């Protein structure tokens, strides 16, 4: 027996994935604090299994402009990780890292893009480390790609890539508190089914 589609993920599997989400979010908070040189508060992460259209709605609807950072997973685990940041989050990162205030995506230059790509690297590293630490599996990360566009268009990329295995993704909400304000960041973790089964087996779960 193995997990044959994302619909077959049960509560035990989901607990494992939640734990990965929690540890990953913890790692990411630490790494982000170090990079930005200040203490960062993160809201407790929410981990869910959700369909792609639901995620698009949670991101403010298909036409809402967001920053997507896409990272392919290689090595023992194959699949895709995608971070979606709302505009305010991206602006905050740029202002903290590059001491530059921008109010619109049009004002972003190459430096700003590399700053965001670096954030993507850090976040992806935090989560892949979490999975590796739990499972002893070796995970490689490709250089992330970045796109700023309509949420629906960005979400079509994981939807299409995994349209062959089901329409679900592991969805992690991890908001950062900046003063009184929550800055929204969303992570999608989409291992291939084979890789998902590998994660479960390496944790001794009968799948």
């Amino acid at each position, binding site marked *: 027996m193995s997990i044959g589609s994302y619909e077959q993920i049960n509560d035990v599997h989901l607990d494992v994935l939640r734990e990965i989400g929690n540890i990953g979010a913890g790692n990411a908070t630490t790494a982000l604090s170090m990079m930005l040189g200040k203490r960062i508060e993160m809201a407790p992460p929410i981990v869910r299994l959700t369909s792609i259209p639901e995620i698009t709605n949670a991101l403010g609807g298909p036409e809402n402009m967001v920053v997507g950072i896409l990272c392919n997973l290689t090595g023992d685990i194959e699949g895709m990780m995608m971070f979606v940041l709302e505009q305010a989050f991206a602006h905050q990162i740029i202002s903290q890292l590059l001491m530059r205030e921008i109010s619109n995506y049009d004002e972003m230059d190459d430096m700003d893009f590399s700053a965001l790509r670096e954030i993507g690297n850090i976040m992806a590293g935090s989560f892949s480390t979490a999975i590796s630490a739990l499972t002893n599996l070796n995970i490689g990360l490709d250089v992330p790609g970045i796109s700023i566009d309509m949420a629906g*268009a960005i979400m079509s*990329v994981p939807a299409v890539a995994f*349209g062959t295995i089901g329409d679900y993704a592991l969805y992690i909400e991890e908001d950062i508190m900046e003063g009184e304000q929550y800055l929204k960041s969303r992570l999608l973790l989409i291992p291939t089914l084979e890789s998902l089964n590998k994660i479960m087996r390496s944790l001794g779960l009968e799948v």
Partner: protein
Amino acid sequence: MNKITIGISDLSVGAAPDSIITYALGSCIAICLYDPILKLAGMAHIMLPSSRECPADSNIRKFADTGAAELVRLMEIKGARRIRMKAKIAGGAQMFKVVSESANIGKRNTQATKDILRSMMIPIVAEDTGDDFGRTVEFFSNNGILQVRTAKMGNWEI
């Protein structure tokens, strides 16, 4: 006038003065068919090139080959004639540069769409495909115009 909204892996047919809209196409394609005599418009929002790659998936609206065939079938039920149909297609972008050329699903979707329309002898009279940006498209049944709206590049009609 009704505005009919379709999602991913979805399709619909509308008669004048209705329009059909689908939001934020990335690498997906909107296949738009028009019968100018009936003023009947149809749109399919397909996600993958070929149903043959996923034999277990029964959603025929997800794929270029089966989606286009189903759209033609539904339009014919409403009285449209294939010989009068004209096609406009949009979408097929590559949202992330990191994806390798062979995995450029936008390009493969575009090619698969052209192949299936050619095999059904439906001419493509306009297309807006490729590049690296998302598109919202609205297809007007009273004149067959396809309006393309983007976040970064402005809006236009084909």
